[in-house]
C-alpha cells in the first residue's frame, strides 16, 4: 500500500481514466472530469493521512509532507483542509462503490454477485486500511454532507441485498426483513475492526458476512452452506 496504491484507488473516481467504468455503474453520481494528477495525489494523501493520524491531527502541512507537493498546489485546488477532505471522502466512497459494482457485474446471480461485491470491498480494506479508516471511521469529521453520502451508499447496498427476495422461493421470504439492518450490522463489524487499528484480515470476514446476508432470506441451512462455501 502507500501513496501509489491510494492514488490508483482514487484515479477511478476523479481522473479521466475512470469515466467509462463509472458509466457502467448507473447509480454512481456524476463525477467532475478533472485532469489533475496533483489534485488526485492530494486527495489520496488526505485520505491516508486522516486514516493514519485521525482527522484532528491532520493538517494541510502533514498532507503536503505526505505527497511531496508545495502549498500552492493545495490551495490551487482546495480552499482548506475541510474542503479537501469533503471532496476526498466523496471520491473515495464513489470509488469503493464502483469497485463493488464492477466485481458484482462479473457474476450472474444474487449470491455470487454479493460474494464478489463484498469481497472487493474487503480486499480494498486489506490493501488500504488507512483509506478505509478515513472513509468508515472519520466520516463525522467530513460533516453532515458526508453522513448523508454514507447513508446513500448504505441504502444502495441494502437495495442490492434485498434483491434476494427475487430468488427466495415464494412465501419463503419473511416480509419484515430490513436489509438496512443487515448492512448496518456488517458495517458495524468493519467499523469496529478499523477503529481498533486492524491492518489486515478483512477478507477473512467474508464467510460470516455471507452468513448474515443469506440467513434472513434463505434460512439457517442455506446460510451455513454459504458460509462453508465462502471459506473454501
Amino acid at each position, binding site marked *: 500500500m502507500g501513496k501509489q496504491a491510494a492514488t490508483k484507488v482514487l484515479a477511478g473516481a476523479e481522473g479521466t481514466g475512470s469515466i467509462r467504468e463509472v458509466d457502467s455503474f448507473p447509480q454512481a453520481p456524476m463525477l467532475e472530469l478533472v485532469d489533475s494528477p496533483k489534485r488526485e495525489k492530494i486527495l489520496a494523501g488526505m485520505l491516508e493521512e486522516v486514516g493514519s493520524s485521525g482527522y484532528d491531527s491532520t493538517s494541510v502541512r502533514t498532507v503536503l509532507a505526505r505527497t511531496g507537493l508545495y502549498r500552492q498546489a493545495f490551495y490551487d485546488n482546495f480552499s482548506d483542509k475541510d474542503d479537501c477532505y469533503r471532496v476526498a471522502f466523496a471520491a473515495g466512497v464513489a470509488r469503493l462503490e464502483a469497485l463493488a459494482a464492477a466485481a458484482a457485474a462479473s457474476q450472474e446471480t444474487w449470491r455470487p454477485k454479493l460474494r464478489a461485491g463484498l469481497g472487493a470491498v474487503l480486499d480494498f480494506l486489506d490493501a488500504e486500511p488507512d483509506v478505509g479508516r478515513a472513509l468508515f471511521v472519520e466520516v*463525522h469529521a467530513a460533516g453532515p454532507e458526508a453522513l448523508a453520502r454514507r447513508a446513500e451508499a448504505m441504502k444502495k447496498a441494502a437495495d442490492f441485498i434485498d434483491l434476494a427476495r427475487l430468488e427466495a422461493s415464494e412465501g419463503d421470504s419473511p416480509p*419484515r426483513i430490513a436489509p*438496512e*439492518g443487515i448492512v448496518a*450490522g456488517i458495517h458495524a463489524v468493519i*467499523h*469496529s475492526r478499523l477503529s481498533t487499528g486492524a491492518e489486515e484480515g478483512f477478507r477473512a470476514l467474508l464467510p460470516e458476512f455471507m452468513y*448474515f446476508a443469506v440467513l*434472513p432470506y434463505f*434460512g439457517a441451512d442455506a446460510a451455513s452452506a454459504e458460509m462453508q462455501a465462502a471459506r473454501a
Partner: protein
Amino acid sequence: MAPPSAPNPQPQGLPRAYAVRSERERVLEAMVRVAAAKGYEATTVADVVEYADVSLAAFEEMFESKEACFLEAYDAVFDVLVAHVTAAFEAAAEEPWPEQIAAGLGALVDLLSQEADIARMAMVEVTAAGDDARSRYRAALARFTPFLEQGRTYSGQGEALPADTARFAVGGATSMIFDEVRAGRGPELKRILPDLVFAVLMPYLGPEAAEDEMRRVTRES
C-alpha cells in the same frame, strides 16, 4: 436549604465534599443537556458552566477539558442505561431467552424515548466526539454482549454461529436507533421495538423464530 436546582446552592452544615459532589453532578447533567441540544462540536465549556451554574474555576478544578467532562458524563449515562436493561433482562429470567431479549430492548426503548437528551447523547453525539468517545461507545455497547451471547446456547448452535454475531446484531439495532433519534423521532422510539427485536434475534435464531417473537411483541405493545 436551597433546592438543588437553585443557583449556587450552598447546603448549610453539609461537609464540603457534598457540595463538590453535587457541583460535579450538575456539571455532568449540564453536559448531557447542552450536548444534546447543540451537538457536541458546538458545545463550549462556557455553555456547560452557565447551564450548571458553577464557576469556570470550579469546572477546571474538576475536569481537564470539555472532552474529559463529556466522557465522564457519557459513562454515567451509559451506567444508567445498562442498569435499566440488565434489570429488565433479569426480571424476565424465568422466560425463554427471546422474551428476555425483548424485555431488555423494551426497557432500553422506554428509557430512551422518555429521556430524549440521554438518547441523543448516548447514541448520536458520542459518535462525533472523537476517538476516545468512540472507543467508550464501543466498550459501552459491548456491555450488552453477555445477554446476547446466551443466544448461542439457546439456539443450540454454539460456536457454529459466526464469531461476530453479537457485534452484527448490536450494529443493526443501534443503527436503527441512531437513525430515529437523529431524525428527531426519539420520543416515538417504541414504535420500532418489534423491528429491533427482529434485528437482534434474527442472527441467532434465523428469520422464522425471530419473526414469531416480533409478532408476540407487536401483539403485546
